[in-house]
């Protein structure tokens, strides 16, 4: 796998760095070099890495706002349609009108939260493109260290700036401890 001279262009280079600090600085270099399809894989979310990678704020919150609004409107419709016209239960001296509106708050609140939470779950899976159980990176033993104590930087070959020799030399220059070329699964 490591013999890049004879093999065709690999899927990606997986490079391990010593610690979070090294990886952080390496990410700044890769960002400045202008690569597009690359990522750092760490055992925990490294604070400030978004900045080092030149990434903006996550837009998941927009999806959740939409989800929460849907929940709120659903609860509004569910309660007022059923209590207002479909099946009014005028008990406890409480008709369903504006003066009894506080009685509808708990369900409005709960459904807003419920729908928001579901949109966090499904929105998150959509934006991070999971579940995806197979991935070429899983062919690499070095990559697997990310879930233990490895600080891994991956540059994919689908970068316009990628070239086998140059990128490997670049990774070595920015302090990679070990570099491995990962192949895609044979089709």
């Amino acid at each position: 796998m490591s013999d890049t001279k004879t093999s065709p262009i690999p899927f990606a280079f997986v490079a391990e760095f010593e610690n979070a600090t090294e990886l952080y600085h390496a990410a700044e270099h890769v960002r400045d070099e202008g690569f597009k399809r690359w990522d750092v894989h760490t055992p925990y979310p490294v604070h400030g890495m978004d900045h080092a990678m030149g990434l903006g704020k996550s837009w998941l919150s927009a999806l959740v706002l939409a989800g929460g609004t849907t929940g709120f409107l659903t609860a509004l419709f569910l309660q007022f349609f059923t209590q207002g016209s479909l099946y009014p239960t005028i008990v406890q001296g409480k008709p369903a009108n504006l003066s009894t509106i506080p009685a509808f708050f708990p369900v409005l609140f709960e459904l807003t939260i419920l729908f928001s939470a579901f949109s966090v779950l499904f929105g998150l899976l959509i934006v991070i493109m999971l579940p995806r159980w197979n991935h070429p990176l899983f062919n690499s033993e070095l990559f697997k260290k990310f879930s233990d104590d490895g600080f891994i930087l991956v540059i994919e070959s689908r970068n316009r700036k990628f070239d086998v020799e140059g990128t490997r030399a670049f990774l070595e220059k920015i302090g990679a401890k070990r570099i491995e070329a990962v192949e895609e699964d044979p089709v």
Partner: protein
Amino acid sequence: MSQTVTNAEHNVHPSDQEGIAREPLVLNNRSMSWITNRICGIVENRQPLIWWILFVPSVLLAGVLGFTLVYLVSTGVGIWGNNQPVAWGWAIVNFVFWIGIGHAGTLISAILFLTRQKWRTSVNRASEAMTLFAVVCAGIYPGFHVGRFWMVWFLAPVPNANAIWQNFKSPLLWDVFAVSTYFTVSVIFWYIGLIPDLATMRDRAVTKVRKFLYGLFALGWRGGNRQWRHYEMGYLLLAALSTPLVLSVHSVVSFDFATSIVPGWHTTIFPPYFVAGAVFGGFAMVLTLMLPVRKLYGLEDMITPKHIDNMAKIILLTGTIVGYAYIMELFISYYGANKFEKDAFHLRILSGHYTWAYFCMFFCNVISPQIFWFAKMRKNLWVVFIIANFVNAGMWFERFVIIPTSVSMDFLPGQWGFYSPSIVEKWMFLGTFGLFLSLFLLFLRFLPVIAISEVKGVLPESDPHHHDWEEIKARRNAAHRG
């Protein structure tokens, strides 16, 4: 480190300053791979004998629960002994008891996350699991309360053949929404937190079955920062959503009582009082479970005396709030003009059948935690464990005091009666303990008990600037020597 160097002069991270150095959250400078090995090892290695010694009776007790439920459904709710003024009695007491226990998990994972209490990382996973199992136990009671269990779907607002819709102005319906939302959101929170750790389990798996199952539930997590940044946002949002949720659930549970006109229930102090009590009881249960787990699986370096100290302080705080609520309830019944209210509390603390329960409650919940004012007592694990169990018992008594005492002597003498639980109620309560413990032991057996990725994130070296500071420090020290 030299005392003469100040922060401003040499750009040293504040936490490196002597004097204000914080106690580390993970002791003995453990490395990341040590943390992975220790936590995953619990799942991967054989369970200690004590696990089986606890698991077998728990499963048997859970079986008793199953038996009582089958007996109940096949025979009828009459076997519950409801034919007295208190009606459900223990069923409601136990529902509120379990749902209260379920509050610490979300408090730890949500509120302590928003307030950036980093110590939560060592205990949040297990307490979230505890939350889920406690809510499962709680849910059994209202589920079977309905009498005809096969009609329980009538609780859900779905169209049915009778064209009947729920009364959305009823606190009982709010309760359905609150508890089911709470359970669902807690599951989502727990699962999203588990994904990175399941990936760790997957990458370490040696058997095919493990690789498949952990791989399946890890969803192909790759830990890339392009995933982490959304993940962190998602986690933050869930924490922000769960924070009002956790406060709302027990408030809504308390509305079941507070919106009625029963003397002793009809008080505005109930929502905050119930929430404080729930946090109080929940932390006691977390300590009851985690103190043995920590010892048994050698997790002392991650669940440190600092963690226990913090939880003991929360117990002291919430216990005192609860004590304030007890006294305020009494004061209002004395000061208010409602003679029924006055009478209800008179019966509760002086002349009723259940006075003993009131004083048990008061001692366990208000007096006993006061020992935590002393740092030495918070450091003594036996004291903490015993007080935590006092609190567990006290919180059960609190619900018992609220429920039967208020309705056993109602407005009319014809509605008076002494309540004691039936044999089915007693076995059912024991059975829920069996179910709770079985689920918790299975959780210990199959899932990482501590959030691995989160604990790694609070190590000093996990800060991306840690090694830069180390370098600065080394250079500065060299300069001093030179």
